[in-house]
C-alpha cells in the first residue's frame, strides 16, 4: 500500500491553504473525498440524472439500479444478512433519531430506562432526551474511566430490569477509545436488551461485520467515510424494521393510501420517505469501492502505526496534555495545553495549514466530566502521514512561542 498514491486521489491536497500545504487532521469531523466519489456525482448529474423508483423511463431505470447497487455494496461491506436491512438516511444523526423515535413510540413507557454512556455524541443522547420529555423515561449514563474508556463492567453496573435499550458509541470521537461492543452486545442480549451502536467514527477505520457483532442497530455517516455529505446508513435487523412503525411519511414508503387508512411499503422502502439523496447514495458506492480497493486490513495496519506515532510525538511534547489513554484506540487524539485555550491552538495551527478541531466535539457530558469546556482534537484519515504529525507538532510549539510560555 502506497500512501502517496492514495493521497493523490484526494484533489483537495492540490490546494494551498494560506500558502501552506494542507495538513488535514479533522477527519473525525468530516473526511475529504477521493476523486472517484467526486466524479461519480458529476457524471450522474451530467449523464444519467433522474429520480429513482418512480418513473419507468430509461433514466429512471438506470438511476434506480445504481441506487440499489449501493445498497448491495453496503450490505456486503458491513456483512449484513439481508440487503433490506440497509436504510439510507441523510446522516447518522437521522439514523439515531429514527431508532429512538420509532423504538420509543412502540416500546418505551414511563419509568423505563435507556442506557447510554458518558462518551456519547449529542446525536446519541438528545433523541433519547426527547423521549424523557414526552414519555417520562429515564436516561442512565455508563461511566467513563480515567483512561477515557467505557468498560463492559461499567455497562453491567448500570443495567437494571428497567433497561429497555442500550446506545453506545463504537469509537469515541473525543477519547479515541474503541469500546468492547461485541461483549456489551452479548451481555445485553443475554438480558433481552437490544443495542444501538453509533458507528460514525468506527465505520471509516475498522472492519465492520454486522452478523458477527450481532447488534440490533448500527448508524453510519457517509461523509466521514470519504463519501458525499447528505447521506447516512442505518443498519437494522430485519425483525426490527418489520416490527417498528415508520418514521417519516411521504412518497415511496406507502403501499396503499385511502382516506381512512394507510398501509406501508415493505422493507426498506418503509423507511425511505420522499425523494432520497439519490446522487449522494449513488456516489457513496465509490467510497465503498475506494475502501475495498485498499482493503480494511491495510487501512487498519497503516493507521495503527500512524496513531502510535502521533501519540508518541504528543506525549514527548511537554506542553501537551493528552486527555485520554485508552488501551484500544482509534485515530482520534484530544489534548489540551497549559495556558493556551483550544480555540487559540486551532487558530494558530490553522495559520500553518494544519486543520484540527477545538471545542466540545458535541460531547458536553464528557467535557463536564473532564472539567474542561473544550479540548483540541486531532483526527486522522487514510491520507495522513508522519510528516503531517511532525508539522502538527512544530505548529503546536509555535503556540508556546506566541503565548510566550517558557
Amino acid at each position, binding site marked *: 500500500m502506497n500512501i502517496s498514491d492514495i493521497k493523490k486521489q484526494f484533489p483537495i491536497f492540490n490546494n494551498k491553504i494560506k500558502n501552506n500545504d494542507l495538513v488535514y487532521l479533522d477527519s473525525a469531523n468530516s473526511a475529504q473525498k477521493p476523486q472517484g466519489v467526486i466524479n461519480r456525482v458529476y457524471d450522474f448529474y451530467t449523464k444519467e440524472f433522474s429520480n429513482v423508483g418512480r418513473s*419507468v423511463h430509461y433514466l429512471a431505470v438506470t438511476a434506480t439500479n445504481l441506487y440499489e447497487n449501493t445498497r448491495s455494496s453496503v450490505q456486503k461491506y458491513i456483512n449484513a444478512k439481508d440487503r433490506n436491512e440497509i436504510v439510507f438516511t441523510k446522516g447518522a444523526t437521522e439514523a439515531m433519531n429514527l431508532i429512538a423515535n420509532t423504538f420509543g413510540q412502540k416500546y418505551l413507557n414511563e419509568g423505563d430506562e435507556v442506557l447510554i454512556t458518558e462518551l456519547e455524541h449529542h446525536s446519541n443522547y438528545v433523541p433519547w432526551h426527547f423521549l424523557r420529555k414526552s414519555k417520562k423515561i429515564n436516561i442512565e449514563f455508563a461511566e467513563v474511566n480515567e483512561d477515557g474508556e467505557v468498560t463492559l463492567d461499567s455497562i453491567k453496573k448500570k443495567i437494571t430490569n428497567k433497561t429497555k435499550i442500550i446506545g453506545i458509541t463504537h469509537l469515541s470521537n473525543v477519547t479515541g477509545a474503541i469500546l468492547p461492543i461485541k461483549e456489551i452486545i452479548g451481555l445485553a442480549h443475554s438480558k433481552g436488551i437490544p443495542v444501538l451502536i453509533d458507528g460514525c467514527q468506527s465505520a471509516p477505520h475498522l472492519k465492520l461485520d454486522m452478523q458477527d457483532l450481532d447488534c440490533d442497530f448500527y448508524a453510519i455517516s457517509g461523509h466521514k467515510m470519504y463519501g458525499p455529505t447528505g447521506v447516512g446508513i442505518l443498519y437494522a435487523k430485519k425483525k426490527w424494521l418489520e416490527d417498528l412503525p415508520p418514521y417519516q411519511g411521504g412518497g415511496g414508503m*406507502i*403501499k396503499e393510501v385511502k382516506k381512512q387508512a394507510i398501509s406501508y411499503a415493505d422493507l426498506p422502502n418503509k423507511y425511505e420517505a420522499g425523494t432520497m439523496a439519490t446522487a449522494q447514495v449513488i456516489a457513496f458506492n465509490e467510497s465503498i469501492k475506494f475502501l475495498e480497493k485498499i482493503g480494511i486490513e491495510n487501512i487498519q495496519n497503516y493507521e495503527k502505526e500512524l496513531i502510535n506515532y502521533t501519540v508518541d510525538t504528543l506525549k514527548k511534547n511537554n506542553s501537551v496534555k493528552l486527555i485520554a489513554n485508552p488501551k484500544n484506540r482509534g485515530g482520534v487524539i484530544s489534548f489540551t495545553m497549559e495556558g493556551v485555550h483550544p480555540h487559540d491552538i486551532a487558530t494558530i495551527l490553522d495559520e500553518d495549514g494544519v486543520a484540527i478541531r477545538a471545542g466540545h466535539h458535541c460531547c458536553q457530558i464528557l467535557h463536564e466530566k473532564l472539567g474542561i469546556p473544550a479540548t483540541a482534537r486531532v483526527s486522522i484519515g487514510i491520507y495522513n502521514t508522519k510528516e503531517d504529525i511532525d508539522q502538527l507538532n512544530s505548529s503546536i510549539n509555535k503556540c508556546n512561542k506566541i503565548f510566550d510560555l517558557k
Partner: protein
Amino acid sequence: MNLKELYQEIILDHGKNPRNLRKIDNHNKDAKGHNPLCGDSVHVYLKLNENKKIEDISFEGGGCAISMASASIMTDLIKDKEEFEVKEIVNDFLEMIKEKDDLKNNILSDDEKTKLMCFSGVKQYPMRVKCATLSWHTLTSAINNSQEIVNTEKN
C-alpha cells in the same frame, strides 16, 4: 430489443381481452397483490379441490397490458394443474423473467410454453418486470393462503 418484442400480439390480445377476469363464487383460497409504484392491483381466486388440484382460478384487477396479459395467460395455463405442478411452473416462470433463457418444466406443452415465453421481452425493461410477475407472486400467496398482501417492491 424493440417494442414489438415486448408487445407481442398474444400479449396485446390477452391485455385487451383478459380471460378469467371475474370472481369465483365458491373459491376457497385467494390473495391480493399490489404494485405500489403504479397503484395497480390484482386479486387472485382459487378453487383447490381435495386432491390439491386447481379446479378453478380467476382474477380481478386492472393494470397495464403486460400485467393483464400475464394474469390472463397464467390463469389459463394453471387451471386443472396440481398444486405441486403449479409451484414448479411459477418458479420456472419467475426465473425465466429474471435471468434464464428458457422454461425448464416438463408440465406445460410446447404451445403453452410459447405463450409464456412471450414475456421474455420484459427482461429488457426492468421497471416492467413487476408488471409481469405481480399475478404470479399473488398466486403463490393465494396457494399458501397467506393473509399478507403481496407487494412487488419486496424484491
